[in-house]
Each structure stands twice: as C-alpha cells, then as structure tokens.
C-alpha cells in the first residue's frame, strides 16, 4: 500500500524539529543539554531558557502548524479545490478583524488591549463570526460554488474593516506596531498562557477530525455520490466546517496570521503519499507542525528581522503560483 511508511517518518521529523526548536537560538544547546533541562536537570539558565521560553514557543508553533495544515486538508477536500485554504472562507480575515478591533478600539473602551486573553478571544469570536456568516449564506443554496463565493465576498469586506482600523490608528505608533506584529504572525514571546489557550482545544479538534477521514474521502469525490453511498453529507459537512474553523481560529489566536501552511503542507503530502484522507489527515497534522517549527527556526537562525508569516509566505507564494500554472 502506498504511503505505509509515511506516518512514522513524519513523526520522526516532528521529533527532530521539536528538539531543534528547543536547541537553537541565541543560546545554542546540545541535544543532551535540552533533554537534561526537560527532565529538570542541568544549570538554571538552561532550564529557564527551555521551560519559560522555548518550550511554550515550540508547543504553540507545533499546535498552530498542525491546526492550519489539518484545516487546509479539510477545506481542499470539502471544496474539491486544491487551492482552498483556511483563509478562503474568510476565517482568517474574521480573526484578524476581531483582534485588530480590540487593539485599535480597546483602550478607548477601557479594555486592556494587549491582555493575553482579550486578543485571542476577540480573534476567535471574529473567526466564528466569519464562518457563521458563510454558513448562513451557504445554508440556502448549500452548493460548493456558493460557499466559495461567500468566502470571497466576506474576505473583501473583513479586509476592508481591518484596513480602516489600521488607518484610523495611524498616529499611534505602539498600537500600529502591535497590529502589524500580529497581522504578520509569529511565535515570539509565546508563554504558557498561550499554550493553555490554544493547545488543548487544538488537540481535541484534531482528535475529532481523525475519524472523519473515511467520509472525507467520499465527499472529496462529490457530494451526491457520497450521499448515495451512505454518507450523511449534511451532518459531515457541518462537522468539518466547525472543526476547520475552530482549528484556524485558535492557530490565528495564538500565533497571528500565518499564511500558506494550510495550502503547502497537504499538497506536498498528497503528491508524495496520495489523497487517502485516513492517512492524509494525521500526516498533515504531523507535517504542519514540523513545517511551522522549521520556518520558525529560520527566523531565529537568521536574526535579520524575518517574521514567521513572511517565511511561510516566501515558501508558500511561489508554491501557490506553481500550482496555478500546473494543469489540473
């Protein structure tokens, strides 16, 4: 069977990326030092660097990468379109608008704008608002085309709102800098609050998604044929869209907007190991975590002001163009 060795290989790569993410940075550590510190041994500085800084950053990166790649896998199959990704429905734009609204308007409303909880909660609310709107628009027609076009319109609308808020805060340097930092995505200064905020729910979402691979296989070859073969299409679609939204929302809430992970990772894995979602879903979760940790390592190894969102875009942009030029 094609792809039998895929999951062990990807798991191995993920472990390697995980350890590298803990070892590299301003303070370079050996694998032994990393393991010592993880188990509470070694000197205090190393333990502090690992436990207070790198471990939360690594866990958030891993979870966000897994969530975005899983979400992208679902959306590509759902829309039967290899160019679909979490940004497509307007979920990322919704999350962005929610967060930017708190950053821009929070101070005048008496909200602590930079609070670790207000920002992620606002972006999650925004993401769900966007998905809710798309689902309402699509519930009547329920066709894939309609859902896609709803996403396009919503993206434009939400993007306009975000641009407006950026413009009206143009005089406030600190607010503007925060907004831009968040819009470009990154894993700097991720703390255990971020871990608890995102990782458990992302793990739960991934676990709930895994058994849907069988149904997703049928759905990816057509809704009517899937229903005729015994799939409750309406219910499956609803589950998939809710899970994909939750995963995208929490990834965005904890790491900002990180584009292209949901596009590149499932694609590469599908090209190598085939489209069977029973294997592709777990593979995307492992591969997405690995990819994001690797991109984050690049920002740390080349400290020239690279942002995580910029690195993923540099990899993903050309890949997207290559896909566009490729005959389907």
């Amino acid at each position: 069977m094609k792809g039998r060795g895929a999951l062990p290989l990807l798991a191995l790569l993920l472990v390697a990326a995980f350890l590298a993410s803990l070892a590299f940075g301003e303070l370079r550590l050996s694998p032994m030092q990393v393991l010592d510190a993880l188990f509470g041994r070694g000197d205090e500085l190393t333990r502090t660097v690992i436990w207070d800084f790198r471990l939360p950053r690594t866990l958030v990166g891993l979870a966000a990468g897994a969530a975005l790649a899983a979400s992208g896998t679902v959306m590509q199959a759902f829309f039967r379109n290899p160019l679909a990704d979490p940004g497509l429905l307007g979920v990322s734009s919704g999350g962005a608008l929610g967060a930017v609204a708190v950053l821009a308007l929070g101070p005048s409303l008496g909200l602590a704008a930079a609070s670790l909880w207000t920002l992620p909660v606002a972006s999650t609310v925004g993401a769900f608002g966007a998905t809710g709107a798309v689902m309402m628009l699509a519930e009547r027609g329920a066709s894939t085309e309609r859902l896609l076009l709803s996403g396009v319109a919503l993206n434009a609308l939400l993007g306009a709102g975000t641009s407006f808020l950026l413009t009206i805060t143009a005089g406030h340097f600190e607010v503007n800098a925060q907004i831009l930092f968040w819009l470009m995505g990154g894993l700097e200064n991720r703390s255990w609050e971020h871990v608890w905020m995102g990782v458990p729910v992302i793990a739960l979402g991934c676990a709930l998604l895994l058994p849907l691979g069988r149904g997703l296989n049928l759905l990816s070859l057509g809704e009517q044929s899937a229903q005729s073969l015994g799939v409750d299409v309406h219910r499956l679609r609803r589950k998939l869209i809710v899970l994909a939204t939750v995963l995208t929302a929490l990834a965005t809430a904890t790491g900002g907007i990180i584009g292209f992970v949901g596009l590149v990772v499932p694609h590469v894995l599908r090209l190598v190991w085939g489209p069977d979602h029973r294997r592709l879903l777990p593979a995307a979760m492992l591969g997405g975590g690995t990819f994001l940790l690797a991109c984050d390592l690049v920002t740390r190894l080349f400290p020239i002001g690279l942002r995580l969102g910029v690195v993923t875009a540099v990899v993903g942009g050309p890949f997207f163009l290559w896909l566009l030029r490729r005959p389907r």
Partner: protein
Amino acid sequence: MTAALQAAALSVPGRLEDVSLDLGPGELVAVVGPNGAGKSTLIQALAGLLPAEGQIRWNGQLLSEIPFQERGRRLAWVGQEALFDFAFPVRDVVAQGRYAWDDDPAGVVEALTAMDLVPLADRPVTQLSGGERHRVILARALATAAPLQLWDEPVAQLDVRHALEVYRLARHLAEAGGTVLVSLHDIRAAYRFDRVLVLDHGRLVGNGDPHAILTAGLIRAVFRVEATFVTSLVPELPVDPA
C-alpha cells in the same frame, strides 16, 4: 408484492411534475426522453439526492425514515458525470462502494472484473478517459451490492463492447431479483428492457412495455422526429449464460 421502488406525486419544482410510478423487484426499466425532460432529476429524486415533493418508498418504507447508511446498502446511484478532483487509485474508488458496509471488501474484485478494470486498478482515476471513468463509477455501484440500481446514462460515453456489457450486467442484476433503472439516449436500446418510462417536460407521458409504448406517434410527439427504425442497429443484448 411490495414494490421495490415507488413514487407518489413526485415533483421537483420546475423540473419534474407529479410523477407516480411503481417498480417491482426483478424489473429492468429504461427512462427515455429528450434533453431536459427530467430523466436525471427523476433518478436523483428517487435516489433521495434531491429535495422533492411527494412520497418515495423503497421496499414499502418511506425514504425519509431510512437512515443514510442503510440507504447506501439498498440503493446505488451512477451519475451522468464521472469527474474526479483527487488522484485516488481506481481500486480505492471502487472500494468506496463498501462504505455503507463498514469497508468490508466483499465484491470489490468482482466489480472491478465485471467492468474490465483489473488492468487499470492501480491507476489514478484522474488519468483515465471519460469512458473509463464511467466504468469506475459503475463498478463502485456494483460493489455496493445494492438491490436498487439507478444509472443515469451509463453508456453515453462507452464504446460499443463496454456498452453491451453494461446492458448485460443490468439484465443479470434484474434476473437476480434487483431493480435496475437506466436512463438512455438511444431509444432503440429501450426495446430490450422490460419496461420503459417516457418523460417529456418533466411529466411521465408513457409507462409500460416498450413495444406498446414507443409507438411512432409517441416518438413524434415527444422527440419531434419521424420514427423510422433501422432495426439492424438495435444492439443485441447477449444472453446471460447464468
């Protein structure tokens, strides 16, 4: 005897109007009609794939009361279009016919063999020709082992050998007690079916023995052509050896 497939006052606004019919087990039935007459709509509505007004019963049971998984075991639908966006191997697509049976692989190899797909079993479906892709979705329908088989223009893209093979299989399934409903473009082939349904502008205008129904007058009224049949072109249905 309980009808295998029954529709009462079945309507789909703008596409199908007040169709009632009653198909028994063991019947091989053709649906004919001009483009846009409602053949595909009728087949999709009977399969429960379209919201429709009126009542549909499978083996006497109201369709709305049959759970989805059970529907997958009882009825197989072959759509007019066989398009695939993901490069699943042929074998995997045919094995999807076993979804409602919890992926028990029984009958998959037989279905591949019946549709002459064994040499193509490991090829990605996206690399096949239109006719080959139709054979894949027919094989998937066979793999379901469902007693109700609804095929929407299954032979339109097939070469003559494979088209005859599809007719032979349809006859075989009916002789084994199944109910097979096939929409056709070639009305000449309908003469070899047990029964023909004629649709025109969403209405059922003929229902019965093809020789009695498909008269020159009806063909003139429905298809707007003068019916001069060249009987020598009627495809011979091979006699089933079983």
